[in-house]
Structure formats: C-alpha cells, structure tokens
C-alpha cells in the first residue's frame, strides 16, 4: 500500500533526525566533560546577575580559562541545584538569599565563615563579596510618594488605596513578602508581576509599589524612591561569587581579585550601562575590567542573524527531539491501551496531570535527575507533548465505526494487520492533529527551556525580560510565533500527502 509506505518512511525520517540531533547533543555533552581549564559560569535571570557573571567570565578568560556561559537560569533553587549537581561551577549569589532561601538560617548578617561552614555538605563555597549590598527595597514613584507623604515601609500598612505588585520570587520568599508582611503587619495580598514589567507598570501608574533592588539601574531612569526599611527587616544582600568547592584553587584566586571592587554606586552604574545605555553585558564587563586594570578582555559580540539562527536551530532541535519521543511513545501506548476504557482513561488522566505541573516547576524538578541544559528541557517538553498525542490516538482509535472494526476482524486480518491496514489509516487524521497540537505547544513551551540553560528562542526572551528590553523579547517571541505558523503549515501539507481529502472530516474548509 503506497500510503502506509509513505507513513513508514516518515517515521523512519523522524528517527533519523532524532538520531542526528541526538548525536549533536552527545558531542556537546562530551565536550562539556570536566577539564580543569574549563569553567562553566552561570547567572540568574536578572540584569545584575548577568553583569556579574560576565565580569567573572571575562576575568577567568583573561587568566587563561575556557568559559562556558549558562546565563539566565530561572531562579535561585534551579541555579544552586545546577551548582551542587556539577552542571555549573560559578555564579553570582547574595548573602541574604543564601541564608534565607538555600540554608534557611535566621541570621540577617551571617559571616563568610559561617556560610562556608554550612555550605560544606553541598560541596559549595562562597568567595569574598564584591562589595555592594543589594538589599530588597520597596520602590515607589518619587512624585507619588511625595504626594501621599509616604516615606517608610510602615507608611504602606493599611493603605488599601495603593496597588502593590511584587515579583513572583519576592512573594514566595521568607526574606521577601512572607517575612515582611509578618514583621510590618500587612494583612492584604498584593498582586504578582514579572519583575521586568513592574517598572513600566509603575511608570504608567498601573501599580504604586513594587519590590526593587537597591542597586537597580532602573531606579534613576524611572525616578523611583526607595522607602525606608524602618523596622530593619530586609537582611543583608552582599553579592559574592558562589563556586563549587572543587573549583581549582587558582580559579578561586582569580575570582577573589574582584573582592571589594564594586560598591552600591558602582553596581547601579554598571546596571544602568546595560539597561539605560543599552550596552551589551560583554561591553560593560570589559569596560569594568579595563578600568580596574584587571586585564583586557576580547569582546566578541555575536551578530544578530547568527544569534537568531543559533537560537532557532536550538529551539527546533529541542522541539523535534521532544516531539519525536512523544510520537514514538505516545502513539504505541495509545495503540496498546485503547481497547481498555479504564486503562485509556488512566493514561489520559496521568498525561493530563503532567500537563498541569507549571512548566518552571517541572523544569526545576528535572534538575536533580537530569541536571540543566538540553536533556531536562527535552524531557519536560516530551512530557508535555505526550497528552495531545496520546489522547488523540486513543480517541481516534476508539471512535472508529464498530462495524468497520468487526469487518476488519471478520475478513481475517490479524491484530497487526487490522492496525496497519484499517485502524491506523483511519485514525491518522486525528492522530496527526494531536501531533500538530503537541508540536505547537512544544514550540511555545520550549521558550522556557532558557531558564535551565538549554538556550533556544527563550534566551532573548528571558534576557529581554531581565533587561526590560522589548526589542530583545521580540527577537525571541517573533521567530517563535513564525515557527509555530510554519509548523502548522507543514502539518497541513503532511496531512494532504498522507490523508485522502474525504477522510478529513471536520477540518477547516478549503
């Protein structure tokens, strides 16, 4: 049969593509294997973290190390998890975050010795601080604070007329909203907002108060004031290099050179160079190292198109491998279980349950098992793609006319022949629709893979959010949208190739 021959050929090609991509990833991870002169530097997904990470990266490069950059990781637990699991070697952290989020100690000003003692079981270590204290702060528009006569955090208590919106991380942290609301006695829930969007919201008077960092380069740009922490709640947040304990002593020596060189003003200025003056992290870091006479870094600024092509390729790679796995697992499982209504139901519920786990949470859960980077991203995308594929396969097979199923048996087809010649060809349109849905979901979700260092079109989006840079966000969002449309069209083409027009009932009219 010509048509099923085509289907098998497609399956074969998909396998080939997966094998090819798999090979690329294998090479990539092989080259990542431990080499004393190679250090992986990571950052979290906000501006200052990128700047500090890039300064450390360039300094290490000046001193002869090869640096792999894994910037823009989604949050403290993901980044610290990546460090302890050996996926990354260095990233910028803050004493307060370390104490409250990672070590869970109740000490607003812990010493370096105390922190290192507590970090020992994790084989992690902190080096002397950069110099600045980037504490959490409550920020308001200066004019509005004046007008309302608000100067301290206490002044906010009981002011129900004020719209408070805090970043998601701040809301969840003991050293953030959880502790602050208790100490100051707030008894209302603020809204949540992506930190990168908060200042714009304040500028447009959509919200009145948000959380900020005292070294935030945006404070001046938006004419914001910081309210006095009159109950001295916010703990110290000294920025410092967090490293793996087994980092070579020489590399630690190099990073110690940065100790005490960046005070609050300097940090705010460096942040401002990126956010306000639109300099790249690489340029700002190189400038800093030159001014501090720490060495001359070679700044290689990736070209726009090259970056775009790289990101798109990575994005496609993640999506195609995940989707391929989804098809290779989802379709056979659907075929195996569709005869039993209860097992089918259980499978679809299980797949649906996976779908309800927030993507970031799922990605975070992957880190202890798969580390960071491509592998956990693919596993997560695969888990998300399973539901539409499995559900459509099961639905398609169940809803085939029982008379035709009976005929297929009665004319003497074996189980396998029934599937190959009757059930699968008849279920194909619905199955393809499921695979198409999974593909489009994958393309969307894959943008989040950047949070765990897997790259892709999410990278400019994550960086853009961190920098409050709409241009950069669009550099990821537009290609992702175009990719989704192309995939939709490709699937329509595929449908036309493998499915007879009269079998496509319930499709959009021509």
């Amino acid at each position: 049969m010509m048509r099923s021959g085509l289907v098998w050929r497609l399956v074969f090609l998909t396998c080939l593509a997966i094998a090819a991509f798999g090979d690329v990833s294998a090479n990539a991870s092989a080259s990542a294997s431990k080499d004393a002169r190679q250090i992986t530097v990571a950052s979290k997904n906000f501006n200052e973290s990128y700047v500090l990470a890039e300064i450390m990266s360039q300094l290490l490069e000046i001193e002869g190390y090869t640096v792999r950059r894994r910037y823009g990781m989604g949050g403290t637990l993901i980044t610290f998890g990546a460090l302890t699991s050996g996926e990354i070697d260095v990233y910028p952290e803050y004493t307060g975050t370390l104490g409250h989020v990672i070590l869970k100690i109740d000490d607003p000003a812990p010493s370096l010795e105390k922190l290192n003692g507590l970090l020992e079981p994790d084989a992690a270590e902190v080096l002397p601080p950069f110099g600045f204290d980037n504490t959490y702060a409550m920020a308001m528009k200066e004019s509005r604070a004046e007008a309302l006569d608000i100067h301290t955090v206490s002044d906010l208590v009981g002011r129900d007329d004020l719209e408070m919106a805090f970043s998601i991380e701040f809301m969840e942290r003991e050293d953030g909203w959880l502790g602050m609301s208790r100490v100051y006695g707030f008894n209302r829930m603020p809204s949540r907002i992506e930190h990168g969007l908060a200042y714009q919201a304040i500028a447009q008077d959509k919200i009145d108060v948000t959380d900020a960092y005292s070294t935030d380069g945006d404070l001046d740009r938006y004419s914001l004031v910081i309210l006095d922490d009159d109950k001295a709640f916010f703990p110290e947040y000294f920025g410092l290099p967090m490293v793996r304990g087994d980092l070579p002593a020489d590399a630690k020596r190099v990073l110690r050179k940065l100790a005490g060189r960046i005070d609050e003003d300097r940090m705010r200025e460096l942040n401002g160079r990126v956010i306000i003056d639109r300099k790249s992290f690489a340029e700002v870091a190189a400038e800093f190292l030159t001014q501090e006479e720490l060495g001359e870094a070679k700044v290689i600024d990736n070209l726009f198109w090259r970056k775009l092509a790289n990101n798109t390729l990575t994005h496609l790679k993640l999506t195609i491998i995940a989707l391929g796995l989804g098809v290779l697992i989802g379709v056979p499982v659907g075929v195996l279980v569709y005869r039993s209504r209860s097992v089918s139901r259980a499978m679809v519920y299980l797949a649906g349950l996976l779908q309800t786990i927030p993507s970031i949470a799922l990605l975070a859960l992957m880190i202890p098992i798969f580390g960071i980077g491509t592998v956990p991203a693919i596993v997560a995308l695969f888990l998300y793609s399973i539901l539409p594929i499995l559900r459509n396969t099961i639905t398609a097979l169940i809803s085939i006319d029982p008379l035709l199923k009976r005929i297929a048996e009665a004319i003497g087809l074996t189980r396998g022949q029934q599937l190959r010649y009757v059930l699968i060809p008849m279920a194909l349109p619905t199955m393809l629709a499921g695979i198409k849905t999974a593909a489009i979901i994958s393309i969307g979700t894959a943008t989040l893979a950047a949070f765990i260092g897997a790259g892709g079109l999410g990278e400019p989006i994550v960086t853009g959010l961190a920098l409050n840079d709409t241009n950069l966000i669009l550099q990821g969002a537009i290609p992702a949208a175009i990719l989704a449309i192309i995939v939709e069209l490709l699937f329509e083409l595929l449908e036309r190739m493998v499915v007879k027009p009269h079998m496509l009932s319930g499709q959009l009219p021509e």
Partner: protein
Amino acid sequence: MSRACVEFRNVYKSYTDDEPVIKGISLALPQDQTTALVGESGSGKSTLLQIINGLVLPDSGTVLVDDAALDYSDLPALRRRMGYAVQGAGLFPHMTVEENITLMARLEGWTPTAITERYEYLVALLELPLEFTDRYPHSLSGGQQQRVSLCRAMMLNPALMLLDEPFSALDPITRETIHQEFIRLQQAESRSIILVTHDMAEAVKLARYLVILKEGEVVQHGDIDGVRLAPEDDYVTQLFAGAGEL
C-alpha cells in the same frame, strides 16, 4: 441431506448473566445451498452466524465446519475460509473499491495476475463498472457499496459465505436488482451460503433451506417448501403469510 456445511451441537451463548441468547441449539445446515436464518430481532440469528466465524465465541457446545470442530485458536485463518458481508456494506473508507475487494488476496500472497483475473471476474458478475476501480466508497450508492462488499466476501473464493442482512438497508428497486444478481451468483459458483434475514419474502426468494429462530431457539428447520407446507405452529404460518404471495 448430504454432508453438512455447518453443524451446531448443543450451542449456548449468553452475553451477560441474563437469559442466554442462544439456548442449546443443535442443527446441521446443508452444503452447497443457501440457508436462510429467519427471525425477528433478538431471536439470536446474527449471534448464531457470528459464532461460525468466531466473532462471537460460544459458552458451550461445539461447532463443526466440513465435519471438523472449529479451531478458535487461529481466528484469522478460520475467517479467511469464510466470506462475510453485512448490512451497510462496511467498506473501508480510506481504500479504493479495488483495494477493498483485493486486500485479503494481496495479504494471502496471490500473484497480481491471479488478483486481477478474480477481481475482473467478480465485478463483471455483479455488474460493477470497471471505472469504479479507483473510486472511494463514499462516492458510491448504497447498492453499489453492497455489491463491492459481496465481491470482497467472494474474493478468496470461500467455500462458505456468511451474510448478515446484506440487502436490508437498500431501497426496494435496488434490492430487487441485487437479488437477481445474487441468484446469478449462486448459479455461477456453487457454495454454501448462510443468509441472515428478518424478511421471509427474501428468504423464500434466495434460499432453499430455512431455519426459523425465536428467542434463541430453533422453531422449525428444513427445505423451504417442506416448512411452508407443514408449519410447526402459528408463528411459522404468520411468517409465511407476511411474505405475501410468492
């Protein structure tokens, strides 16, 4: 009666714990003739037919085909020896007319020449235009679809054909035409045919042997003329009366 094409020995079948649908039927059907299984819905006639090709497995009792007990362990092999056609034709919508008819022959490894020969013979026999070869079932009328399904049932030249009300859904004129073709088909190739129908007139026209079923039991069976002349009870008499003057 000569040898039996199908023999039931004390066959029982129930789908749930309720009353059985086949209540201990013992019956032998003649070879190389057309037998009609007649009864109203719920009489068990379709179930009895499906027990022959293993679509329904009996709870107890034995079924013999050509004097050998059916081997339900290899159902595909069993079914390939029997043609099967049903009400509504049941053609596969993604296959052309030719693909529908020749599917099993191709899987059985027939040579292309043998397939073409048999295919062309059958479509000619049932007066299906050769232009239909590459058409899909949805573009055919109900009568044409049913002809295709009869061709499919006869493709492997089975010694036994099982027909489950194949003509019931057709309009009267089409039905009459296909009846005529069916009669020609009986003359062209001699084989045992078991035809399930609720229509006594159809049974009288197409079959020579008659089995009347009611509530899972055989009311009467025998040559049609014999049954007509000596009805066992009022129910049989009524059935013939309903068949009109034939």
